[in-house]
């Protein structure tokens, strides 16, 4: 497959997943911020912190209000990670590889793009309701389903899955971080702690509540963290994401388990096995935020390695001419 096409497929998939996760992000906070007797002075600030794009927000908006945060995350075309920017980027990538994806895939991406663009034209931030974000989530899920059902599961599909899972791992870590931002270590008595309602909202934002109940029953903060970080079977847990991201890489390179053929495989294998042999107590010993921060950094390094190994234009032997 063309390196450029692989690059486009991988990023198309990442941007769709990113758009979906912005919707999930906003969702969790909508639910929490509506709770009476607000525990936090500024319920919208953590959302921006969790994106890692605080300086950009501060520069463009200053104050965190429901309106400014929703505009920034959803409709701001100048913010490269906003919902609308991600949707456009996904579509540009898809358009460039239109011949490599199936028509139903293209049609779903295009419909998502039209939906978001229409919202940008017609809706004000106060009209961005649960219903709107739910439509985004569904459109993304539909795209994933259509991709599975209509794109041959060859190299291209592996790049699509790889992109989706790496993006999802990163975003699940950030959703977890929204409410735990600011914890230096294990919560101290003075720390403002999320309530059961808030932890429930976090689970709901990744559609994980029912599956969580089957494993852990009642809501305990450590169990929620355990579930979203380390559950082996839940499809949005970080461990699950990395397990199958690794599988995609292996299928493409043909490496047997326990070995690696390139830098990307090495980094991902190390990261995945780390999660396989970690318990939630180990995580809490470092502090959740510190743990998540390191994880995000490692995911970024993995992303760089994937680009180097698969997408970068190889240096060519000098032509005879």
């Amino acid at each position, binding site marked *: *497959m*063309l*390196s*450029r*096409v*692989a690059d486009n497929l991988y990023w198309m998939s990442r941007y769709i997943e990113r758009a979906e996760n912005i919707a999930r992000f906003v969702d969790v906070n909508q639910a929490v911020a509506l709770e009476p007797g607000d525990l936090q002075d500024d319920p919208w600030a953590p959302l921006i912190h969790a994106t890692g794009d605080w300086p950009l927000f501060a520069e463009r908006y200053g104050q965190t209000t429901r309106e400014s945060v929703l505009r920034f995350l959803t409709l701001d*075309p100048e913010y490269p990670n906003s919902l609308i920017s991600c949707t*456009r980027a996904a*579509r*540009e990538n898809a*358009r*460039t*590889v*239109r*011949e*490599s994806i199936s*028509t139903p895939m*293209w*049609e779903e991406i*295009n*419909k998502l793009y*039209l939906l978001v*663009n229409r919202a*940008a034209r017609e809706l004000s931030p106060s009209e961005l309701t649960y219903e709107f974000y739910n439509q985004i989530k569904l459109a993304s899920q539909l795209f994933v389903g259509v991709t599975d059902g209509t794109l041959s599961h060859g*190299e291209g599909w592996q790049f699509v899955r790889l992109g989706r899972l790496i993006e999802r791992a990163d975003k699940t870590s950030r959703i977890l971080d929204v409410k735990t931002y600011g914890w230096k270590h294990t919560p101290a008595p003075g720390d403002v702690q999320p309530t059961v309602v808030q932890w429930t909202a976090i689970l709901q934002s990744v559609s994980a509540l029912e599956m969580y109940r089957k494993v852990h029953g009642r809501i305990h903060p450590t169990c929620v963290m355990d579930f979203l970080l380390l559950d082996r079977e839940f499809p949005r847990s970080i461990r699950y994401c990395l397990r199958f991201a690794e599988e995609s890489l292996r299928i*493409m390179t043909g490496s047997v388990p326990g070995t690696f053929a390139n830098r990307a495989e090495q980094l991902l294998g190390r990261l995945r096995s780390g999660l396989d042999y970690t318990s939630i107590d180990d995580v809490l010993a470092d502090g959740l935020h510190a743990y998540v921060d390191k994880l995000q950094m490692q995911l970024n390094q993995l992303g760089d390695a994937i680009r180097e190994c*698969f*997408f970068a*234009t*190889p240096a*060519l*032997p000098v*032509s*005879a*001419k």
Partner: protein
Amino acid sequence: MFEGYDCGNLFDEAIQSTGAPRPGAAALVKRINGLPPEELQRRQRMADATMLNLGITFNVYGHEGGTEKIFPFDIIPRIVEQHDWDQIELGLKQRIHALNLFIDDLYNDQKVVNDGVFPRELLETAATLRPQCRGFRPPQGIWCHVTGTDLVRDKDGQFYVLENREVMKRIFPQVFEGLPIAPVENYPEKLLATLMHSAPKGIDDPNIVVLTPGIYNSAYFEHSYLAQQMGVELVQGSDLAVVGDRVYTRTTRGLKRVDVIYRRIDDDFLDPACFRADSVLGVPGLMEVYKKGNIGLANAPGNGVADDKAVYAYVPAIIKYYLNEEAILPNVPTYLCGDREHRKYVLEHLAEMVMKPTNESGGYGIVIGPRASKAELDDVRQKILANPRNYVAQPLLHLSTVPTLVGDGIEARHVDLRPFVLCGEEIYVLPGGLTRVALKKGSTVVNSSQGGGSKDTWVLRRNGLHAPGANGSAQNQSQTQLVGAM
């Protein structure tokens, strides 16, 4: 729906001057008349929504956030009757055959010039002539693999060739998606066969790619559509590299050899080492590989010389010279301003004629005498005098009309017809082709950039509709969930 339908004294493709439908269109007219009110409009909206969802759009202005519009499309089809189509098909095959021989001759022996049939001066002043191709013969001697030819029908019902070829122009994807009346013929399949045929000798299973200038090109949708339908890779110049004597694509597993490029980039931009040095769309060194016979290019570089509108005027003579036949499809009478006698006539009749630059396409620079202001006529007079070779003039044709959905009703709108011809092992004419329609009342400008739209083109077959045979029923779906399992 057709009460009050007025096509004036022009030729209408569906309705006769008596108001009765033409035989071929009778079934369609009856069908439309039988639809409930608003049904046509409803279907038109559905067709538009489908095209929007499928992203069959072009950017109106700018790119980021700019409104995208669908290619305007009218759902009432244009019908071409079998006897008309037979003449078009034969005429186009003859024409492309002769033009291929002509181009090959121009770049090699130049017999047609030496025998005094085609003026040397016209040849040497043709902006589309590529001296870099002198002495070269492409694989199988084919120069124009894919050709679109613009036809119009005048008042008398006769089809004329209006333009030689508009190879690089947009085709509109729905043209390829099967023609509902003629048995569905698969254009991408035929195109693939044509491209395979243009591979270098000795390569049985060529690796074919479609080369596009990229997503901002107005025909990008078509490039990606054709690549997808043929199951070949769509590449940009930066995906290709020349190493040694071969062309390769850059893949996730290293370099992969390419054997045929269906290029949708103009000659000028194809290879900065051979043509325009500032091109960033092309592949440096491509022409060297091509001349060594290691890559097939469709269309062959240099084939554009046949698009010159002054060359067009000579097509009947060219057909006579190479094939010893009369042209089956007539030309529109054409006056070459480079010729003293012709120029004198044109300048005396500017207000009645249509003046066209010889090397432009897409309707640019055309002046329609009867509709031009005095200033515009003076302007074109100066341009002709300054560079006579650059202009031809033709009498104004009265383009035929087709019923078209306009607001609440159906009105007559002018159309042309662009069939597509593939030249491989044999010459193939895709039944139907692109019907372009001028959506503005009275307008004859069908270009999509200037208010034109498209229609489906249905070619009627004598044998009528092809109905799928009954092959018996399938196996029962015998397995069901056991009662009580739930």
